[in-house]
């Protein structure tokens, strides 16, 4: 590193979180700094350098800072500490462990308290994979430790220069993250001591290996997603919607049920109370995939709305880096951020203070490229050890006034693979999840057509047929509200009722019913088969009333069936009754 260790600085101007620092020596763009004031050190980041002054954004409340306060330059960029122990942790936007902070400081978040993200005392059961003499490079597996629900691979540090040779490696045994587990000699003959932990700058992707095309579904147990608007493992999706439309409930649903091995939840600038539900519930809820607790596969990054705005941006990057770290081990990871709009607003606040030329709605001109860079960190990576891991990213968006024609939604739509748009009209009508099936789209649907598996193509065709019916039904519904039912043909009425039926029994799903809340793949197929029969059937009704009554009754029976657990006796009976109605 070329940066001078002796760089010194002092505060010469301050406004809000933006400091101007005069320094002597070298300064790195985005380097961390500590502002010393009132006996504490406040973390900040260099965001602009001009001659002998630098602009620094401080991540914490800046009250008490004065002209001449000392600034210490750290030389490191904002980094994430990686290693066993990340799972089950709850961090703030700078990777401070919030539970440890509470132990030290009580109810409130004190300024300038930075604790170690990983427990340095706990011993992990290490089993070596590599052996002395092996040739390695960065991200090569050295060994593994069991962590919660996964085999955590200990890898050659990501900043290791070029090729290396293992000189020594510790035998199987119990070690802390600070214990040396290997000595590796690089090409220049220098020997590096390696532990189970390493640091990585949050704004640089961890992606060592070959990128693969995301073509496998990430199953979510949410029918409207897995059906018409699926998400790929390693793909991206967004959930914009007005307040109260159900973005957070949906994200929580996905974080519980998605078939990922590791889930990172970034609570970015939204309510603390919602994180608390996750914090308190996940340790008690079973993970159906592993039989362990949901918390065992989860890391939470929590920078809620009253926490420092400046650390909102970093919260997203810290979460992404942790998720990428697990992906590098060949693990399927999922990152959920609620809400990316708050991160964009944090960028806007800082850009305003820097007096940059504002773009639309005062967001900075680089907003879209930042959003694109973030979603680009998703993907499938085949590492050199031969394992493929994926990182799927889902971000909620909170558009002003619920209007999607705003910069954050538009920039997001330009880069994601799947758009799940939540609408006020659906949430008002209590059609949950309020993902609007008429505006949403997924670029992944056709990718999952596997030529070797015939049923995969058939399923997609059925879903497309159902969606077509839904669109036609909606057109008819609109017409009906203008001309009245009398002006609509019987055939059209039936199409309309079929669309409503598909919507009610398949697309809608009650998050608060303990059975309906998550539907496994087999059951989804069972439901879809019956929906298909109904949609394809040629019905003859005496009159409109009879048609309405039939569909009302069928819908009611179907929803009751959706609420019935597969294990109970009524499950089969109810299905038989529905089939009788459909066939009879």
């Amino acid at each position, binding site marked *: 590193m070329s940066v001078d260790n002796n760089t010194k600085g002092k505060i*010469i*101007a*301050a*406004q*809000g979180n933006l400091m*101007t620092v005069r320094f002597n020596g070298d300064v790195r763009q985005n380097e961390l700094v500590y502002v010393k*004031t009132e006996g504490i050190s406040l973390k900040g980041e260099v965001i602009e350098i001009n001659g002998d002054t630098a602009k620094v954004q401080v991540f914490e*409340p*800046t*009250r*008490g*800072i*004065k*002209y001449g306060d000392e600034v210490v330059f750290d030389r490191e960029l904002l980094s994430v500490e990686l290693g066993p122990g990340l799972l089950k942790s*709850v961090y703030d936007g700078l990777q401070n462990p*919030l*539970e440890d*902070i*509470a132990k030290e*400081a*009580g*109810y*409130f*978040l*004190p*300024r300038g308290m930075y604790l170690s993200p990983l427990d340095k005392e706990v011993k992990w059961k290490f089993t070596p994979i590599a052996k002395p003499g092996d040739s390695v490079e960065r991200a090569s597996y050295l060994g593994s430790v069991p962590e919660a629900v996964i085999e955590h691979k200990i890898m050659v540090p990501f900043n290791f220069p070029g090729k290396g040779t293992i000189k020594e490696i510790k035998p199987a045994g119990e070690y802390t993250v600070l214990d040396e587990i290997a000595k590796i000699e690089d090409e220049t003959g220098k020997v590096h001591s390696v532990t189970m932990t390493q640091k990585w700058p949050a704004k640089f992707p961890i992606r060592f290996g070959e990128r693969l095309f995301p073509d496998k579904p990430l199953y979510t147990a949410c029918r409207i997603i897995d059906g018409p608007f699926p998400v790929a493992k390693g793909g991206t999706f967004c959930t914009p919607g*007005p*307040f*109260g439309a159900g973005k957070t409930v949906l994200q929580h649903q996905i974080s519980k049920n998605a078939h990922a091995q590791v889930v990172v939840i970034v609570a970015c*600038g*939204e*309510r*603390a*109370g919602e*994180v*608390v*539900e996750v*914090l*308190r519930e996940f340790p008690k809820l079973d993970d159906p995939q592993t039989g362990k607790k949901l918390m065992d596969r989860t890391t939470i990054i*929590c920078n*809620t*709305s*009253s*926490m420092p*705005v400046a650390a909102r941006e970093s919260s997203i990057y810290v979460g992404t880096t942790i998720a990428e770290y697990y992906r590098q081990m060949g693990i399927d990871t999922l990152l959920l951020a609620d809400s990316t709009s*708050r991160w964009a*607003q944090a960028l*806007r*606040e800082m850009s*305003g203070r820097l007096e940059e030329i*504002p773009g639309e*709605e*005062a*967001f900075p001109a680089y907003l879209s490229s930042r959003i694109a860079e973030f979603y680009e960190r998703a993907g499938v990576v085949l590492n050199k050890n031969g394992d493929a891991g994926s990182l799927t990213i889902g971000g909620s968006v*909170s558009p*002003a*006034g*619920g*209007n999607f024609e705003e910069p954050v939604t538009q920039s997001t739509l330009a880069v994601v693979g799947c758009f799940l748009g939540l609408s006020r009209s659906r949430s008002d009508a209590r059609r949950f999840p309020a993902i609007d099936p008429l505006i949403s789209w997924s670029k992944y649907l056709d990718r999952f057509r596997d030529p070797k598996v015939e049923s995969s193509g058939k399923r997609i065709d059925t879903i497309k047929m159902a969606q077509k019916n839904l669109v036609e039904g909606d057109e008819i519904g609109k017409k009906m509200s203008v001309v009245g039912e009398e002006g609509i043909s019987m055939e059209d009425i039936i199409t309309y009722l079929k669309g409503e039926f598909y919507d009610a029994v398949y697309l809608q799903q009650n998050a*608060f019913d303990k059975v309906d809340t998550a539907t496994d793949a087999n059951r989804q197929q069972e439901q879809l088969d019956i929906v298909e029969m109904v949609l394809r059937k040629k019905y003859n009704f005496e009159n409109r009333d009879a048609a309405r009554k039939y569909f009302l009754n069928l819908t009611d029976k179907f929803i009751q069936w959706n609420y019935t657990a597969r294990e109970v006796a009524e499950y089969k009976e109810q299905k038989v009754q529905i089939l009788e109605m459909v066939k009879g």
Partner: protein
Amino acid sequence: MLKTYNKIEKIKGSIAQVKAENVTLGELAHVRLKDGRSTLAEVISFNEDDVNLQIYQGTKGVSTGDQIKFLGRPMQVAMGDSLLGRVFNGSGDPIDNGPEIMENKIDIGGPSFNPSKRIIAKRMVKTNIPMIDMFNTLVISQKIPIFSVAGEPYNDLLARIASQTDADVIVLGGMGLKYDDYEFFRKYFSESGALEKTTMFIHTASDPVVECILVPDMTLAVAEQFAIQNKNVLVLLTDMTAFADAQKEISISMEMVPSNRGYPGSLYSDLASRYEKAVDIDGSGSITIIAVTTMPGNDVTHPVPDNTGYITEGQFYLNGGVINPFGSLSRLKQNVMGKATREDHGDLANAMIRLYADAKKARDRESMGFRLSEWDKKLIKYEELFEERIMSLEVNLDIIEQLDLGWEILAGCFDKNETGLKNEWINKFGKWDK
């Protein structure tokens, strides 16, 4: 050692600039004007020894030769039981002719609560108002706005809630209030006996705009101190749109780039950092916030109600003098309905709202001149009873009495099997003859 300066270099908007040394961000200064007035001011930025002060009383009449004394501390508010029954302005000065309170000063705008120390909200706030308790139950630590428009009786509603609830302490923050409104609160509380447990911070429309911004912080700092001391505190804020407008005015005068209809880009954070003070402290007290938000042009997509909606846990719509049962939502109600109340609560509330929605449709049919069915007639009778006995804000009943009243109204309008309610509840709680 307090530093005093006698030369103001620049005055613009609410900001005055002085050359001063050893001054800290957020520090408070005392400005003594030549005309005998005095005001507090706060350091909002500095560039070397050029210090920008935001003058709480505004810069009107401030002279370049006025005396500025830096106090070496940030804005503070007094604390303790002596605050109860008292009224202060946004700067914390008494406006009720009572003595100034000097003891136990604490900084306002303190640090935020550690999320990992929060608990899931599950205690009910009883307001004895059926449109809240029964249909959109309020929960301790909830933050919820009353979305309304000028002219609606939102302050009456706040006063009524304050007087009927069992909160230990009430802290009222008034922003942009008319003098009459302030008098109304004072009288209402003293008549209802709530005054003894109430502290008020009042900014009236004629007071300086900077003081408006201080009101929520003063209010919440006091509330937080009571909450830590094991008190359940109800915070009432009215009107948060005046607060947002004050933020707008000041940010524009400071030449900040506005983001949406003139409001600063930080509007969301400005509102959230206040609302998020709502908390239920494990093993101690709590803060619950009800905040009036008037909607300019009755438009919920206006930046103030819109940003508020993203922050709060639901909303009450107050229009036509009643809480609208359709748009209103308490996002936390399921945490207490049927659990902290009575087992039939949730189902009864849903059935009653559903029937009320049906009744509204029957009314539409009536007004369009259609012949009404027997069922329509029943619904219309129900609608009348519902509006008179349940929706009226005058009603003051315990939640159990509210539920019984609900059953009574149903029994008075419908047959047992017409309500769609479970037989289990009908047999246990129904008011039909056996």
